[in-house]
């Protein structure tokens, strides 16, 4: 089947994109606001068409470890959850990073801490971009701002994960997960055969042929000298990712006097703020990080040549603003604006905050 244009929710888009990508497996556990991902997969029954395995696990802990198992075999496997569930997955994610395994994780964020609310939030920015679990590691973090990007980032996330042998995460929020938009679905790709997987991922634990040594997937190394070397290798990977995979979008930035840095649904709200500001004669640009890690620090730093101040607008109490400040390094004023606990601000609230904090 070819490309198709359809109207659907962000969560449904994730499911359709995974099937079309040729994903081998999905393992999840229900949680609002992302349960439609697994529901859509179960309805689509991809095991009858592409052969994709879909399984409802007994917990997020089990689900992420199923992902670890599938990834250990070189398969394209994924899970999705929302904030409390993603917290439970952190041990497994650290093991995935430590064992250098590719996989895709989706977090459709809701407000916390604790059980919190089921309303949208971006309060898991720190968790996603700074590691989240124990140890020195990073996830390739993609922040979609549309249902189309939910589709596109499934393929991008898997491709980057396999390219660098590192987990990738789609950090969406409840708005992107729940809203309906028109999307272009890519054509179906065939799942890779075992022979292809063995050729592309010679490290995969798929059974040991006589002519190679056994493959062992592990994050354990008791010798600190070797463990340091492993960590140096991980850091080299993160450096390569940082050099090659930074993605962002600049909207109206060229002649802007003020810059808003915002990601995901917040970036869409801020696009409207640009228009409202223009009506008042204030030139505002929006820089939307698409990769939250690696973070577009240089692109933001470049803006300091002409903007008078930067507002980091987030659905949290001030997380990304720390990275913006690091990028800007004191050259211009950087302030944070956020609503908490699942409240989503209006574009004029953002404008009011910009005026109050920066002008």
């Amino acid at each position: 089947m070819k490309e198709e244009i359809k109207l659907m929710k962000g969560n449904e888009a994730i499911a359709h994109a995974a099937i079309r990508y040729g994903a081998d497996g999905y393992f999840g556990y229900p949680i609002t606001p992302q349960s439609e991902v697994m529901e859509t997969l179960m309805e689509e029954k991809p095991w009858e068409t592409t052969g994709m395995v879909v399984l409802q696990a007994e917990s997020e802990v089990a689900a992420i470890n199923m992902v670890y198992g599938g990834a250990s075999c070189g398969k394209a496997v994924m899970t999705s959850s929302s904030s409390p569930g993603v917290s439970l997955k952190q041990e497994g994610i650290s093991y995935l990073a430590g064992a250098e395994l590719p996989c895709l994780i989706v977090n459709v964020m809701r407000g916390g801490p604790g059980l919190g609310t089921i309303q949208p939030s971006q309060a898991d920015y720190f968790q996603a971009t700074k590691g989240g679990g124990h140890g020195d590691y990073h996830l390739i973090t993609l922040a979609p701002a549309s249902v189309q990007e939910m589709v596109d980032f499934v393929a991008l996330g898997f491709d980057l994960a396999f390219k660098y042998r590192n987990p990738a995460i789609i950090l969406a929020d409840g708005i992107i997960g729940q809203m309906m938009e028109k999307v272009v679905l890519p054509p179906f790709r065939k799942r890779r055969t075992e022979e292809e997987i063995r050729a592309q991922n010679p490290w995969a634990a798929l059974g040991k042929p006589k002519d190679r040594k056994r493959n062992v997937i592990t994050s354990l190394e008791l010798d600190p000298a070797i463990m340091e070397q492993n960590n140096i290798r991980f850091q080299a990977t993160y450096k390569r990712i940082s050099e090659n995979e930074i993605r962002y979008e600049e909207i109206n930035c060229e002649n802007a006097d003020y810059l808003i840095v915002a990601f995901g649904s917040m970036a869409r709200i801020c696009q409207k703020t640009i228009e409202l500001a223009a009506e008042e004669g204030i030139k505002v640009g929006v820089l939307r990080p698409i990769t939250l890690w690696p973070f577009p620090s240089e692109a933001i730093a470049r803006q300091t040549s002409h903007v008078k101040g930067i507002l980091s607008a987030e659905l949290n109490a001030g997380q990304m603003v720390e990275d913006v400040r690091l990028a800007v390094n004191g050259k211009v004023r950087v302030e944070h604006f956020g609503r908490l606990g699942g409240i989503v601000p209006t574009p004029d609230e953002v404008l009011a905050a910009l005026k109050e904090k920066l002008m």
Partner: protein
Amino acid sequence: MYMDINDIIKPENLVYTKPRLMNDNPMHYCPGCSHGVVHKLIAEVIDEMGIEEETIGIAPVGCAVFAYNYIDIDWIEAAHGRAPAIATAVKRLNPKKMVFTYQGDGDLAAIGTAETIHACNRGENIVIIFINNGIYGMTGGQMAPTTLEGMKTSTCPYGRNVALNGYPLRIAELVERVDGTCYVTRQSVHTPASIRKAKKAIRHAFENAMAGKGTSMIEIVSTCNSGWKMTPVKANQWMEENMFAKYPMGDLKNV
């Protein structure tokens, strides 16, 4: 008739040797630890079934974490307790492969109880090898869910007190009740006869998994002589005299 020993030690007279799939890496286990015997049996069964190229082992967190260093097959090292979840995915994504987990009683019966029971309940076509030595070996001999009443460990130095710590958990009896299991058995490896029986059980379990009959669990009541602070020989005696009453030998289920 006198026969020189060198006339006997010839390849054609060989009756027993270290399994082919067990490599020459010296094992890190304490002298006399049951883990080594069970490793040998698994290596022999895989070899005899001719499935070494199709077998994937899931190693636990516990003393057997390094099982992957000794049996020459592909391995995945799990987070503590999560081996059955990992095995679930490996088997579902590779239905023709032989997938087994190897877990201690802390790994399987404490932190990983949920994963164990749910893998069994889904009837995953995997084998779970469960080493019940009544103690946490790797971390230095703390209480396990399987620790016997009155038994001393470093976290119950005055003996396990059920008022404080609850009762020894009999996992085999639990998973026997779960519909997804096809074979649940309790074995030991402390005598030549018990070792032969345990090997038959492992073989039967592996055949079940390959035939898609459901989950098989082989509990092996084992010793941890270091944790128990006994000689290996004494530990075997102590196991027979104390563990077998709570953890009786034999098949609980075989369908």
